[in-house]
């Protein structure tokens, strides 16, 4: 372990970053998540994210779930660059008209089991943009959705919790 790694680790331990209770929660849920992923997806659960017109911070929280505090990759959750490698599609945003085709094509490019997860209130039914002339409103009108993670935006911890709930089933 390099000095810098140690430095990071010690910052985490000291709890400078976030309240210690939360770190414990992350570790505990993470361990369960890892078990579930080991059992059902042979150690790695691959997700492809698609933004269909979000305000940008649903993405920020997904990225935060990958930072060293939460670090979902160590539990087996990977964000992949291509839908061809993905077990699940994670969709954010209210589905603007311009993104309809891209969303459909990304879904078509996925292999089975083609899970679709929506994240954030926008992706459920258009959320705060529901009434807009340019919003299709809700991913579930277009693709079969397995799980919705509510929030505006959901926190990294809520994201982990929701994934755990899905994979434990």
């Amino acid at each position: 372990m390099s000095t810098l790694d140690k430095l990071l680790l010690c910052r985490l331990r000291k709890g400078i970053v976030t309240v210690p209770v939360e770190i414990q929660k992350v570790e505990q849920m993470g361990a369960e998540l890892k078990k579930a992923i080991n059992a059902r997806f042979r150690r790695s659960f691959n997700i492809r994210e698609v933004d269909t017109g979000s305000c940008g911070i649903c993405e920020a929280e997904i990225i935060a779930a990958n930072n060293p505090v939460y670090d979902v990759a160590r539990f087996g959750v990977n964000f992949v660059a291509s839908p061809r490698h993905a077990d699940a599609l994670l969709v954010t945003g209210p589905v603007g008209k311009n993104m309809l085709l891209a969303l459909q094509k990304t879904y078509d490019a996925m292999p089975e089991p083609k899970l679709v997860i929506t994240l954030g209130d926008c992706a459920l039914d258009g959320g705060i943009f529901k009434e807009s002339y340019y919003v299709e409103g809700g991913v579930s009108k277009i693709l079969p959705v397995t799980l919705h993670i509510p929030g505006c935006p959901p926190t990294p911890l809520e994201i982990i919790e929701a994934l755990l709930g899905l994979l434990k089933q």
Partner: protein
Amino acid sequence: MTHKDEVYIEAAADNFGALCLSLHKEHCSPVMGMFARELKDDYRIYCAFISVKLKKWFFATLDIPKDNPQFPSIAKEIYSANLFEREIREMFGINPIGNPDNRRLRLHEEVWPKGSFPLRKDFVPPKEKPEGREYPFAKVEGEGVFEVPVGPVHAGIIGPGHFRFSVAGEPIVNLELRLGFSHRGVEKLLENKIPSAAVRLTECVAGDSAVAHSWAFCHAVEKIGGIKVPERAAIIRAILLELERMYNHVADIGGMAIDVGFSHPAALASIIKESIHSLNQRLTGSRFLKGINVIGGVARDIGNLDGLDSIMADFKDLKGILLSSVSFLDRVEPTGILRRETAENLGVTGLAGRASGIAIDLRQGFMETYNKLDYKLSTYSSGDCLARLKIRIDEFEGSAKLIRRLLENLPQGEILASDINFKEGYSLGYVEGWRGPVLYWVNLDGEGKIDRCKIIDPSFRSWQGLSYAVLGEIIPDFPLCNKSFDLSYPGGDL
């Protein structure tokens, strides 16, 4: 009703261009915004300029009859008007005569019919078939030139946009941006809303600038109604705006490190970002500082800012690692240069503008809360990725200092104005967000409802800056250049 920081000058069709040109030259200002508004029998065009010297905003206005919706384009003389003119044509069906680029920015030809203009008052969602026209990208032809299309779905966890690179060998010879994928029709959604019910929506225009956007909107409405925001509330807003700047700047500093494969400092940066989010959560109940700004003040008081010291200690380490790494500096300097003249022509302001030597920051002289603080902006002249990185470093440290000074100035007292009212009138609200100036021009009708709200996020103009900065660079440096600007898809697409 007049505001001392806004000057409106009426023009006629034959001298509108000349008036704009003289405002542009006299105040050395790009077109900060240009937009239309529907009146009973006319459309009114507004073209906004900023005078840094006089600390005022100048608007040239032109009325054009509805039965002949056109006006002479000014983009030939003032290029920064170009995108705004195209936007007006697309959203209102008003033709800027002489502007040759009739491609749409947001209502993509593949999914939206011809002749349906969302911002007209009589607009109804169209039933006609989409125009179906293919989007004509500028073509670069010649031996060895090939095109690389990227997006709208990218490899990373990021907003949607389409980039069309033309490369000759490695170097990029042209980059065409096609955006609008995040268009949600926000300006239309705001219409007919009572201002207090609209604040939450303005936070979602660009979520990473929730404070800047909602503050700018509140500022406009408060100016119209003469609502006096208590000093304590104004200072709380400023503290939150600086926290917003800090978490975004450190995220981008880390992002630039990751885009050249330097993962240690990137990890440290993301830890610092997480610490600021935790602090935000503790202060306001929201990691992204949402739900705080309300018309007339803030919705809740804030507690102490413990934790800022350790954040600054971490940041010092981060800065040390980056600026002492020769191989890192080698990648960011002199990569992705945006020349000052180009930036001026395109109307690039804010962070990217300051990195190219354009010394405009609304916190210096424009925003009342900052006047007492004697804020000094930071500028560089090289316009490369390193300059944009250094601006972020300076501003991160500057924000922490500002927060400390704001805390010292924080008086006891109310956090909400007592005289909240929504009366007829219009005004410009403005805030220097972390990307640059966020502008909200708001017109309230006789019932105090929103008749027109024009939102101008700095990303709208600055995206073009990116397409010039990458010329001559290689595609592998594109992510770095892109991150160094870090523009907002939703902020530009509305």
